[in-house]
């Protein structure tokens, strides 16, 4: 896949991105007129939760050139942090969220330290291996449901009181989180750190020669991305009130990559639009046939073969 040039987004893309965010913000106002309001809000909340994970993946994939095939592990870790704490009666956001972040940061530091030493396909494979480790660990947690997963009684609370109990409030919590993390990663990639990260993708030797520690920069980005993905897992567990090892499976990691690339990587809004496109296509195709993957698989191959730069690439005509 061709990584995009380091230019500002084109006007069409910018307008589209703002339009997507505005549409997501206003969707609940229109939802009552559509049949199945709860279903639509639930679907869009899921889209936004995966968009957070995809945005975080884009930070290392699109900007850092690190093709992580184990990113779903962080989503799963975040979800399991919620699930396991809740099984012990701890549901307060002020505890659960910091624990989520800490667990993901620890896992990212440990695995990242090994992974960033490798390059290219070895990086892909080693992140895949770490993802599998997390997956198998989750399946063997017999007292937390093992293979079957873990059901939550209720959403996380704040100082003991239930918050965001109705779907609409939860929807806006998720929307706020997406907006926050989108803007945060946007700030990160345009900061000095972000410029070093992007430069290291293009020419690590030169960046190293300039006196930067490429491995450390990559590791930092990897940890940040892991923590953000952990938050998306935190939200996911709260959304469906269910935690399962399937969140960490390597197919999930593959789907996250698909979302990022489908939208157009190295753009951040591409990740948002890609998640929207991926989950809506999945939803739409699965209404046609339960075997929707038979249609989606070839679609994916065609996108790779013919639509370089993803959906946004088709729109903007902006090629690196």
């Amino acid at each position, binding site marked *: *896949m061709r990584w995009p040039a380091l230019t500002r987004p084109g006007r069409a893309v910018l307008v589209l991105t703002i339009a997507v965010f505005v549409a997501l913000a206003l969707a609940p106002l229109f939802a009552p007129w559509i049949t199945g309001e709860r279903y639509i809000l639930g679907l869009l909340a899921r889209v936004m939760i995966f968009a957070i994970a995809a945005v975080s993946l884009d930070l290392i*994939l699109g900007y850092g050139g690190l*093709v992580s*095939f184990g990113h779903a592990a962080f989503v799963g870790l975040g979800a399991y942090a919620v699930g396991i704490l809740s099984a012990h009666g701890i549901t307060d956001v002020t505890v659960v969220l910091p624990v989520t972040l800490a667990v993901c940061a620890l896992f990212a530091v440990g*695995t990242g330290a*090994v992974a960033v*030493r*490798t*390059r*290219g*396909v*070895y990086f*892909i*494979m*080693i992140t*895949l*291996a*770490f993802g*599998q*480790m997390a997956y*198998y*660990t989750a*399946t*063997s*947690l*017999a*007292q937390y449901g093992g293979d079957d997963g873990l059901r939550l009684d209720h959403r996380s609370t704040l100082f003991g009181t239930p918050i965001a109990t109705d779907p609409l409030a939860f929807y806006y919590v998720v929307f706020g989180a997406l907006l926050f993390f989108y803007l945060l990663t946007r700030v990160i990639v345009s900061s000095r750190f972000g410029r070093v990260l992007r430069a290291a993708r293009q020419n690590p030797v030169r960046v190293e020669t300039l006196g930067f520690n490429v491995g450390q920069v990559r590791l930092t980005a990897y940890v940040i991305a892991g923590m953000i993905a952990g938050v998306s897992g935190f939200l996911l567990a709260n959304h469906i009130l269910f935690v399962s090892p399937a969140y960490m499976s*390597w*197919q999930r990691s*593959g789907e996250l*990559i*698909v979302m990022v*690339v489908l939208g157009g990587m190295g753009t951040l809004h591409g990740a948002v639009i890609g998640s929207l496109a991926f989950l809506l296509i999945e939803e739409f195709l699965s209404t046609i046939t339960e*075997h*929707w*993957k*038979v249609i*989606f*698989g*070839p*679609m*994916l*191959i065609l*996108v*790779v*073969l013919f639509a370089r730069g993803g959906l946004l690439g088709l729109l903007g005509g902006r090629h690196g």
Partner: protein
Amino acid sequence: MSTTLFVVQLLNGLQLGVLLFLIAAGLTLVFGVMDFINLGHGVQYMLGAYLAVTFYALTGNFAYTLLLALPSALALGLLVEVLIFRHLYDRDHLDQVLATFGIILFVNEGVKIVWGAAPLNVPIPALFSGSIEIMPGLLYPVWRLAIIGSGLAVAVLLWAIVSHTRIGMRIRAGAVNAPMVGALGVDVKTLFTCVFGFGAMLAGFAGIMVAPILSVEPGMGDSVLILAFVVIVIGGIGSIRGAFVGALIVGLVDTLGRSFATDIFRLFLTASAARQVGPAFASMLIYLLMAVILFVRPAGLFPAKGR
């Protein structure tokens, strides 16, 4: 743990190892010669098993099944190469990962439509059914020994082809510098297609051989694919020797780990804690091994020359 149990698990590990070698050999060749990551390789293994089911249902004879299924697996491999993979060789790894991920989605779902989601199986051929006593008091299924034997035979054959024939020489040269081989007048495109088809056939062969002992079901290739990737990464991508050593290491470590981890943990943990930690540790063992090996040798145990 008794000696018999240990020997049985050793043989099981060896059997998993040669099986992984059959799959990893194609994967590592394709990667070495064409610089191509093929996630769809596990699918070839699964299709081999399904072909065995179908042809066995048609002929009722395992020898005929093998004779029919092998060329079919080869043909399927060639078809995919010509239709899709050929256009991806000069793309970067991410594109290849995505397109072949699409193939996995398609074929896994496709076999559900054609053969149904329920697990299928093939009976063990009569000639190889039953067990023999390989040590006093140790019975071992003949078919598993047949798998080990055929896997080792393929390994010898591959070694002979790759290091002692003209085409093997071209494959080795292609792994070092494909454009140069092309410039010297070798039809690289055909070479690639051959290597790819051969690799697909080996994976298909593995699928056919396990059809009598495993349940044939959608997605059966996925876990094996991941293991095969661990194998080639440990062994060094592009190296057949690395794939062989890596496959045996992974097969043995995984099998022995699963059988004995709980017992080992019981030495210094309580029984219930060992039952918790043992299986989890066992399933992570090969990934830990891979991480450690990559940490010490970032290019694997036997890095192919020229990369």
